[in-house]
């Protein structure tokens, strides 16, 4: 009676049609000591599955200390890049704006200075010439007197 049932279950088992409960019945039957002679060739299959379940991992699980560490490092680096970027950017921007203005002012200053110098030089030269004119007038007056 039991044997017939086991045979039926075995057939279903090999067709992949047994439920977990039915497979437990088969496992229990084949892992006990007394298995019918006609079915003894199937015993190693169920024994093997049991043995396979006894295997355990023996290596210790190695995990880095804390999970958020990676994320934090990422955030820090982004923050650092942002700060440096902002610093450099603003420095560069402000610097260039000032120098540009300064350069323009300096150039204008230089230009106007040059212009003034030129003017004053010419003015001086003019007065020098004027003294000749004055001398000429004096000499002319002396001659024609």
């Amino acid at each position, binding site marked *: 009676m039991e044997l017939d049932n086991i045979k039926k279950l075995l057939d279903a*088992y*090999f*067709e*992949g*049609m047994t439920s*977990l409960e039915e*497979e437990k019945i088969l496992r229990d039957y084949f892992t006990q000591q007394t298995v019918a002679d006609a079915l*003894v*060739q*199937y*015993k*190693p*299959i169920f*024994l*093997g*599955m049991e*043995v*396979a*379940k*006894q*295997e*355990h*991992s*023996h*290596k210790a*699980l*190695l*995990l*880095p*200390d*804390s*999970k958020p560490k*990676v994320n934090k490092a990422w955030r820090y680096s982004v923050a650092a890049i942002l700060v440096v970027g902002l610093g450099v950017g603003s420095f560069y921007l402000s610097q260039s704006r000032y120098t540009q203005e300064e350069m323009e002012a300096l150039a204008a200053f230089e230009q106007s200075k040059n212009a003034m110098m030129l003017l004053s030089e010419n003015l001086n030269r003019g007065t020098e010439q004027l003294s000749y004119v004055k001398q000429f007038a004096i000499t002319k007056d002396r001659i024609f007197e």
Partner: protein
Amino acid sequence: MDKTEFIAIVMPFRDKLYRLARRILVSKDEAEDAVQEVLLKLWNGKMNIENLKNPEAFAITMTKNYCLDRLKSKQASNLKIVHSNYHTSENVEKQIESNDSVALVFRIMDSLPEQQKIVLQLRDVEQFEFSEIAKMLDSNETAVRVALSRARKTVRDAMIKNYNYGIG
């Protein structure tokens, strides 16, 4: 989530991951490495394991994919590996059990196509429901049943052959 919480979630099914990796990769050391790698990925990953509906099934899928990838790159880079693997697996099995016919079951299991190997492992060793296995393997129940039936029959035929040879 801290380390202890993560380990508390992962520990109950860690050996299942190891056994699956072992079945696919055969080598014990490689299976250990694979489990370590998968759990590290889970730990460092963006997705939080706490938010997963079924962390076990998710980890099993990850392990399966990781091991199959390992196998692919191994076969691509080294053809000799098949031969050397055979020796290590034989040695390891000798340590596990002295029963010759049980050792034969293991050898047959190792020789099955990957998909059948995985299905047999998940059903007959870990006893998952067909619906769970189908989800883990991104397949359907019918395909799982078919693969399982083929795997079981291959093992059965080898056992019958071995048994008859023993008698005769």
